[in-house]
Structure formats: structure tokens, C-alpha cells
């Protein structure tokens, strides 16, 4: 039991930190541009596939640097030549533009790399068990993922709190118009923020690619969870996104490792109707409902606290 708790906590924190790598970019983009980037998970996928391709040509370490830069450049281009154009048509048009973009990116990835998973391997340097707890080997690569995401998290914190550009971004989180009035080149800041945000998502993609499955449906699988994180944390709140990322990471990881079901817990009390179509509810295990946990959490949060956990702004 203790083993399960330790391993699941580690995995949960890891998944949560990965989510936060993406959710942070999404939140900052949303706060500054007012648009929720529907294609954000697609940049995560692009990162994974670019990472795969570049690691084939040059090895994993160059890929870790080049793939996010490439994805970030594409992101900046999308902001400059796409989003800025649709901006005058309102937020719905912007959201629809990123929705169409997500669709197109998935199609393009399918055309180039196919529909089946690609063979994106953990680099040989990190392919060993880091430590053993209670007979379970914990892979070093996962520790590496955890360290990278924590390092980026700390780096982001320092940039946001200590530098001038961070100051502007922070100001734009709460008073986006005021920042424009103060004479900053808002267009360039937007492009930069969009580029950095998508590059962060791509970093998450490169480091998650070898550990999870690198496949053309990975954006479609992760995207909705990402939006749940942002809504549960409170739209436009960075601390909220952090809390929600960890929460959802932990909830999902713990749920996967649990095998209990209603019939297991109340087996002797099995009611007569349990043999009808309700048998599904009666017999389903916690592990099986793990994929819907984030959405259940979303509905609960919406009923109990519509603003999100730490949200203050109403959109």
C-alpha cells in the first residue's frame, strides 16, 4: 500500500508538472491575448514529433533544444499572420481559428508520420532505473522529466517575478489594456508570449514523447484535460493553473492504480437490479473511470465554485 502511494504520488506530481508546463503557457496567452488557444495541445504534439524526427537525425539532446524552438517559431508565426488578422472579428473567431488550426495540425501530422505510434525511445544515457523502492524500479528518465519540468517552473517563476518582461506579463495578466496604454509594443509582446507559450508546450511534448505514446491522436487526448485544468484553476490565474495541474495529475494517477468497484465494496449487498444495464455502474472499477475523473471534477467545480479554484476574473 505504501509502495503504491509513493509511486503514484511521484507519477502524479510528474504528470501534474507536465500539465503545468502546458497550462502555464495557455494561461498567460489567455490572459494577455484574451484567446484560449485551442491548438495548444497540438503544439505539444508537434514538439513530440519534431523531437522524434530530430533525435533520429542529431540525437536526443539537440532535439530537446531545437524542437521547442521550431514549434515556438511556428507558434509566433501563427500569432503574427493568423490570430492578429482574426482579432478584429472577435474572440469567437479567434477561438474558431485555433480550433481549425488544431484540426489541420492533426491532419498534417497524420500525413507526415502516419496514424500509428512512432518509435520514440528514451535516450540510452537515461535508460536505467534511478532507484528501487519496495521492489519497484523507478526509471531515471522519469526523474529527468520531473527535474526538467521543475527547472522550467523555477526559471519561469524567476523570469516572471524578477525581470522587466516578467513584470509586463504580470501586469498584462490583470490589466491587459493598461499595459498597452503605457506604450509597450503590445504586438511584439503578444507574439513573444505566444511563441514562448507554444515552445513550453513543445518542451513538454519532447520530454513526454519517449515516456508516453507519440501518436497523432495525442493532442486530441490531452487537449480536453488541459482545458479542464485551466477552467478548474480559474481562467487567467497562474497559481490556479498550478494547483489544478497537480490536483488533476494526482487524481488521475491514483485513480488508475485503484481497483475497487461498487460490487467489490458492497458485494454481499448486491441488489437485484445490478444484473440489468446498471451492472456497468455496479461493476466498473475506479481504474476504468480514471479517464473521466477530470471531467467529473470540472462539473463539481462548476457547481460549487464557477470561477474556478483561484480564479477572480469573469470572462
Amino acid at each position: 500500500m505504501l509502495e503504491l502511494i509513493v509511486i503514484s504520488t511521484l507519477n502524479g506530481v510528474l504528470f501534474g508538472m507536465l500539465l503545468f508546463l502546458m497550462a502555464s503557457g495557455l494561461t498567460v496567452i489567455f490572459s494577455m491575448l484574451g484567446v484560449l488557444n485551442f491548438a495548444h495541445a497540438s503544439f505539444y504534439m508537434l514538439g513530440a514529433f519534431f523531437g522524434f524526427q530530430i533525435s533520429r537525425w542529431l540525437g536526443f539532446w539537440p532535439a530537446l533544444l531545437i524542437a521547442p524552438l521550431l514549434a515556438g517559431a511556428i507558434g509566433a508565426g501563427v500569432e503574427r499572420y493568423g490570430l492578429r488578422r482574426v482579432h478584429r472579428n472577435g474572440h469567437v473567431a479567434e477561438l474558431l481559428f485555433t480550433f481549425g488550426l488544431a484540426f489541420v495540425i492533426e491532419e498534417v501530422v497524420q500525413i507526415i508520420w502516419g496514424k500509428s505510434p512512432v518509435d520514440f525511445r528514451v535516450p540510452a544515457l537515461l535508460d536505467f532505473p534511478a532507484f528501487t523502492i519496495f521492489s519497484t524500479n523507478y526509471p531515471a528518465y522519469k526523474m529527468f522529466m520531473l527535474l526538467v519540468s521543475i527547472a522550467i517552473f523555477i526559471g519561469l517563476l524567476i523570469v516572471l517575478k524578477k525581470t522587466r518582461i516578467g513584470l509586463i506579463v504580470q501586469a498584462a495578466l490583470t490589466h491587459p489594456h493598461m499595459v498597452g496604454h503605457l506604450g509597450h509594443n503590445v504586438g511584439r509582446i503578444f507574439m513573444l508570449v505566444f511563441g514562448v507559450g507554444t515552445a513550453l508546450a513543445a518542451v513538454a511534448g519532447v520530454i513526454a514523447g519517449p515516456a508516453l505514446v507519440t501518436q497523432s491522436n495525442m493532442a486530441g487526448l490531452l487537449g480536453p484535460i488541459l482545458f479542464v485544468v485551466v477552467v478548474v484553476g480559474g481562467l487567467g490565474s497562474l497559481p490556479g493553473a498550478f494547483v489544478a495541474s497537480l490536483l488533476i495529475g494526482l487524481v488521475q494517477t491514483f485513480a488508475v492504480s485503484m481497483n475497487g468497484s461498487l460490487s467489490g465494496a458492497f458485494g454481499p449487498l448486491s441488489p437485484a437490479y445490478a444484473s440489468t444495464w446498471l451492472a456497468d455502474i455496479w461493476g466498473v472499477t475506479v481504474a476504468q473511470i480514471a479517464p473521466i475523473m477530470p471531467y467529473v471534477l470540472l462539473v463539481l467545480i462548476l457547481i460549487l465554485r464557477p470561477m474556478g479554484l483561484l480564479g477572480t476574473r469573469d470572462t
Partner: protein
Amino acid sequence: MSEITVSAAPPLPAAAEKFKFYGLWLAAAIVLLLLPRIFGSGGSLTTFSLIGISIIFSLSYNILLGQTGMLSFGHAVYYGLGGFLVIHAINILSANKLPIPLPVVPLIGGLTGLAFAALLGWVSTQRSGTAFAMISLGVAELIASSALILRTFFGGEAGISANRTKLLKLFGWNFGPQIQIYYLVAAWTLIAVIAMYALTRTPLGRMCNAVRDNPERVQFVGYNPHVVRYLAFCFSGFFAGIAGALAAINFEIANSAYLGAVQSGTVLFATYIGGIGFFIGPIVGAIFVTFLSLGLSDLTQVWQLYFGLIFIAVVLFAPGGITGLLMMHRPLLKAGTLSRMLPSYAIALLPTLAMIAGGILSLETIVHYTVNPGDDSHIKAFGVSFDAASPYIWAMAAILLIGGYLVARKTWTWVGHAWDDATSVAREKGIAP
């Protein structure tokens, strides 16, 4: 007070306008009746049925997006649940020999959609704008994932099926042949379109528009925007349920794809491409997208990519959709200055088409090298055969694409100038705003 209302109310329409209005619906009914006489083949009947279903679904979606300003990414939930309940209903009805004929059954789907919209809508519509979009996505994922868990009811991956011919017969119709299904879909389409049009003319429909345009002022007037959004959501769920029911009857099967993100995305594409600003927009969009998805898949391997690119192009260049583009020209037509636009359109069309052709050519060549590199390089796309390995083709694609783009950019600025001239003339005549 009563004086104000009287003076504020629009004048009653003249007899001629009334005649025009009802004549339009009558004409639509006659066209629907006569269509199978002209295109009687099985394939076209199936296409018409699909279009009818898509029209109801898109119009129901536009109650949310166009009329109330709520962008939903999960509208297929109510469509799919309506479909599933109808399949179960047909099975129960035929097993128990209940005296309910098939034409009434879509109502069950509608009521299912309404019930689930009433249940899930209260939470979803608490917030509007971006938050609503994300919430609708989350709720849709919740339902779609649950459908895969509740295997007995939703039938898992395979879905559940039913036999529509086993119900009570009306006038000797057993609804086996596609022509009878066509008439069923056509009748329900007409009813649903009229009902949804009527809804836009009610005070509720007007309040929906007000909530879309300025929710804060709606609050000042004394309405609760949340309640208005909720009511619009319920109506939208009802009509989506009818569309889902008709789809389930048409295919005699309901599976988890009915509820999924692809279905929600398709209805969003259809509605937006058609145009959300006018009532007729989603109808145009439904017809266009159904033909496109049926036609493109024969013409090219990567039709979904073209589909996505068309959608992005509409969002970027024609946010009013197809109907928005057409309706833009109405003031010019009235002012008689439309003819000034035509030469510039004709000039702009040529390089634009060249650019598109170049784009398609390069795309198909790239697809050939990435998807099936080992195959014969003589490929066929959009009915045109060419050699993807030939450098001439590459050069032609590049020239068409880049040259077309450069020339098209110039010509479209001319179109812009011509447009300004034409509208300023129309404005002088007091027609254009």
C-alpha cells in the same frame, strides 16, 4: 406604457409580404416533395436524407452560436443521446407491439435531447464566452467517455442497432425503402425549420440576441442572462435530439461516434462555413458541407485536410460565412452598382484560382512522397492525373503558388478599391449603412 408599446411595435406586414413569406415555405415544401421525382436514385435519396438531418442539426447549433452567442464544442452530446434513446425506443416498441408509428419516434429523440440539455445546461450556461466553450468541451468528453464505460446501454465500440420496419404501419408504409425515409426526414426537416424560425421571432428569440450582444444591459432591463442562455440551450438540445433520432432511424444504428468530438466539430464547421449571421446560413452550410464531405473523399486522399483549410480560410477571410459573403452584396444590388464589382472580381479570380491550383498540386505531391512513397508516381487527384516525380510538375506548382499569390495580392487590393467606390455610391443613394 401601452402607447409606447403600440408605437414601438413594428407595423403589421402588408398582404403582399405575407403572401411572399408563406409562399416561400410552400415552395420549400413543394421542392421537398418533388426532389425524389427528379433525382430518384438510391444514392441521391440517401444524400438528401443526410442533408436534411444535417440541416436540423446545424440550425439547432445556430440557436446557440449565432443567436445566443454561445460557442459549444459539445453539441453532438444531445444529438447522440437522442439517437441512442430512439434505437432503444424502437426496440422496446417493437418488442412490446406498442401502437406507436415510426413518424412520431423522432419526438422521443427530441425529448431526450431536451431532458439532457435541461440537466447539463444549468451548470454549463452559468458562464458565457470562452468559459462556456471549455465547459461544453469538458461535459462532452464526460458523456462520450461514460458511453464507452456503460457498455450495456451504449453497446461499447460497436453500438446498438434496431429494425425500423417492425413498428406499427401507417397507411401501409413500413419505412423499409429509402424513399419513405426520405419523406420522413423531409417532413421533420420542414417542421423543425419552421419551428426554429418561429423561435427566432418570439420574445425569447429576441432576448437571446440581446444576451449575445450585451448581457450586461439585459441584466439592467431585468432579465437574467443565465436563464435566457439556459432556455436557448434547452431548445437547441431538443432540435439536436430530433436530428440525432432521424440519423439513428436512417442508419438503424447508434454508436459512440454519434456523441464524439468529430460530430461536434462537423456541425460547428457546417454552421460557421454557412454563416451564423443569418437564419438561412446553417442550411446553406449543411448542404455545402455534406456535399463536400461526400464529394471530396472521392477526389483526394487527404480530404479532411482540405476541409480544415477551407474552414480556416472562412474564419480568416469571410467571417460571415457563405451567406455573409452573398448578403454583403445586397445593398450594391439594390443601388445598381454591383456591375462595377464584376470586372475586378473576374480579374482577381484568375490568379486566386492559379494559387489554389498550385497549392493543391504541391500538397498532393508532398502527400504522395510522405504517405505512399513506394507507389507509382503517376497520381490522380481531383480527376487530374499527373506525374508527382516530374520536376516540371514541381516547377509548375511553385510558379502557380508563388506567382499566383503575388498577383492575387495585387488584384484583391483593386477589388477593395472597387468595393469602396461601389459602396460609397450605394451610401449616397441612402441604401448601404
